[in-house]
């Protein structure tokens, strides 16, 4: 079979690749799944975890699909007995010092190592080693928790911090089995250049980097929560976020117990979030929320009332002013915090119901 200059065979099928494409990206594009642990499309590939090894004719050893560039005429095999054996061995080694009980460890994000070990039926009886990686249990930062026992030293978090957020607050330290994720002088993240974007949590394949709050509040693990895709309510970037909802909490009203980012490559934020978008959701269920309409009594105090009463007082109040001074004595202030539909209704209320163009949103910038 004659192949064109930009073609190779993937599991026997002829496919075209683009300049500089790796086997992994090509395979993903073709819908062929290759398992990975240290790879992330936002990061430079490093080939550290060896999970993605595939067979390429002409190479004696298996090659990492995440770093190997596609070249013309390559014959790539992504699944066969040899590859499966390799993956089982690798996973069995990873598992020797990794907790095996999903219920005990999967409190934060899903653990992809456990998933793979299950999927490849990796032997779990190759002896147990106690993990000897050091953590920073006393880190008093409010959001990010590092559970060293779950770390597989893939360095995704460290690379994300250096390459995407570019603050290099964390680093790999020590060698061999004691390799861990550390900060300079083991300082709390609060005292480093960390900007609390939480990208380390997002990229971590095992949940070793995880969010503190849901754990300290004893919320359900992520896999038992419902995800609702919506738009962040802070700045004008419009990042897409997934509200993780516990439907039966909060007397059945539902409770947002954490926020995660959609996978990279799917939305405007490419899997990234900032500190506000990822962590600042406490206000949603805050006890200070207003739960009843309030009206001002004769003594100038605000008092709870019914919707009926509040609406009537408000309508009468505005209509009286309009009658006395004309509609242009009314001002309607709309908000960029509200939806497009609500802004539409507010200006329609001013214009069509009260006949004034005195309507503006706060912060028209």
């Amino acid at each position: 079979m004659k192949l064109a200059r930009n073609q190779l065979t993937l599991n026997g099928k002829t496919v075209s690749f683009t300049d500089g494409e790796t086997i992994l990206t090509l395979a993903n594009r073709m819908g062929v799944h290759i398992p990975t642990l240290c790879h992330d499309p936002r990061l430079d590939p490093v080939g550290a975890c060896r999970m993605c090894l595939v067979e390429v004719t002409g190479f004696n050893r298996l090659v990492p699909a995440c770093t190997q560039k596609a070249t013309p005429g390559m014959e790539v095999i992504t699944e066969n007995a040899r590859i499966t054996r390799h993956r089982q061995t690798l996973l069995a080694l990873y598992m020797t010092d990794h907790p095996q009980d999903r219920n005990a460890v999967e409190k934060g994000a899903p653990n992809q190592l456990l998933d793979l070990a299950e999927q490849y039926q990796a032997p779990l009886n190759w002896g147990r080693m106690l993990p000897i990686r050091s953590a920073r249990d006393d880190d008093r930062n409010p959001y990010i928790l590092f559970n060293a026992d779950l770390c597989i030293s893939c360095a995704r978090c460290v690379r994300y911090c250096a390459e995407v957020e570019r603050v290099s607050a964390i680093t790999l330290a020590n060698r061999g089995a004691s390799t861990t994720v550390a900060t300079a002088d083991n300082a709390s993240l609060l005292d480093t250049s960390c900007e609390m974007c939480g990208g380390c949590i997002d990229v971590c394949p095992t949940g070793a980097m995880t969010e503190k709050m849901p754990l300290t509040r004893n919320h359900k693990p992520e896999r038992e929560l419902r995800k609702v895709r919506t738009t962040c309510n802070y700045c004008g970037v419009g990042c897409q976020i997934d509200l993780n909802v516990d439907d039966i909490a909060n007397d059945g009203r539902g409770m947002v117990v954490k926020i995660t980012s959609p996978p990279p490559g799917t939305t405007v934020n490419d899997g990234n979030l900032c500190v506000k978008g990822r962590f600042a959701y406490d206000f949603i269920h805050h006890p200070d929320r207003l739960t009843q309409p309030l009206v001002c009594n004769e003594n100038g105090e605000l008092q709870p009332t019914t919707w009926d009463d509040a609406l009537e007082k408000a309508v009468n109040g505005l209509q009286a002013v309009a009658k006395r001074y004309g509609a242009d004595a009314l001002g309607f202030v709309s908000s960029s915090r509200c939806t497009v539909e609500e802004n539409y209704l507010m200006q329609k209320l001013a214009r069509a119901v009260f006949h004034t163009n005195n309507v503006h949103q706060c912060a028209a910038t």
Partner: protein
Amino acid sequence: MAGLVNTFGAGAMTNSIGEIRDADFLLVIGSNTSEAHPIIAMEMKRAVRRGATLVVADPRAIWMTSIAEKHLQLKPGTDVWLLNAMAHVIIEEDLIDHKFIAGQTENFDAVKQTVADYTPEQAEQITGVPADVIRWTARRYASTAKAGIYYVLGITEHSHGTDNVYALSNLVLMTGHLGKPSSGLNPLRGQNNVQGANDAGASPVFYPGYQRVDDPAARAKYEKSWGVSLSPTPGLNLNQMMKTTGNKIKAFYVMGEDILLSEPNVLHLERALNNIEFLVIQEPFLNETSRFADVIFPAAIYAEKDGVFINSERRVQRVRKAVQPPGEALADWEILVQFANRCGADWNFPGPAEIYNEMVKDVPRFAGISHERIEQTQHVPGLSGIQWPCPGANHPGTKYLHADGVLRGKGLFQAVQYRPSMELPDTDYGLILSTGRTLYHYNSATQTRREQGLSTKQSEAYIEIHPRDAQKRSIAHGDRVQVKTRRGSVHVRAFYSRQVRSGCIWMPFHFKEARANILTNDVGDSITGTAEYKVCAAEVTKLETGKKDTLLFPGAYFVER
């Protein structure tokens, strides 16, 4: 964003956020991007990593300057001088795009004449940016094909904010950096749905979709659609409403905003609110303004309702209800419908999708976008949401504007002359005060200060002051100080910072115990009414010595040990 509507015909980012990573030259002006728009900053970091040249023009040394090729540390409020001098160089060295100017623009000669006087040497005197750096930046900008400009409140929050936008538009038009991927003029919106609120007509001069209220044809269209007669006179903008509160404006209906925390010169406004006759507030939380309210409606927040937001890059995206609102709180749209119907209107909207459909019926540029269509794009990789203009159901949406010619027809050059800021330092008030936001809080912080984590990272109001200015006033790092302007004073902690220029101080506006907007000047931009948050004259005096054991880091955060 009237400035851009006037020059280009549409007030929004001309490019997409996803195009930033492919740009070869980025000019970031008046935008503290890594704190105000962290995810856009990530895209810029990605571009720089790829080899793009980043130039930051800002009075403060911000995080982005650490990866910038050049930092133009101009004096606050001198942007027009800087930009006109760049235009001067581009014209003088004939780096202009003759074909684009001839075919797609008008009024170039006026600008050419005006900027002839703005030499880089003189600009150096006024802005403090070296002439050769201005020349270098102008050349690099003009001669790089994929060159994008990014700006935010730093540019528009001046009494001459619209002038700044015009000066930027001129640079874009004379170099033809428009209507191409990664190359254009991009205002980054400060708040989640500012774009959408503008698009939806929450404006005293525009119906939805920027159709003017004083245009008889537009008015006739809406009178027909809504079945009522409409006022032909443009309304008051927010700045005008606030200034005439109590005498002209006698009642307010305020939805989702704490005007007392977010509007300038609040002491004046506070007095004025005592004199109005009726105030209705619709809010998720009590806030500063609530004290003056006659009626307060408890409102749902974004996680409790459906609808759409429109982001800076014109992308219409869904807001989805995930949980029930607390108690009897209702979504803002539900409250508005009930309110209108009690006033005798006959609004019948089963849900936000129907409201949306009514809106787009009269706005061609959104006509192809619907809740259902956004739903369908949701799981197409890289395609979630749809960018306007999108005139028909088969139109894919628009990644970058002006591809088939400037939307206005011809791009309009607008000659602008430098006007000093309304209030400059003098013997009584020797410093220039600018205000802004930080990464860890958001506007009036009613949400973020209820977040314990964010408050550990940044719990207290502060100013940044240059050590030289501080020492002149015997102020030590960490001291408590009084910041005073002609309008009022607040007490905060002083941080030594070399991020601000000497002669300038900077203060975040999130803290209600030290409201920066007690200090700021409420003179509005003549066109948009946006107030001058970025420049006013101030003085600082020491109150008490700071705690010795308090270690303070200037700028981003401080730590107590």
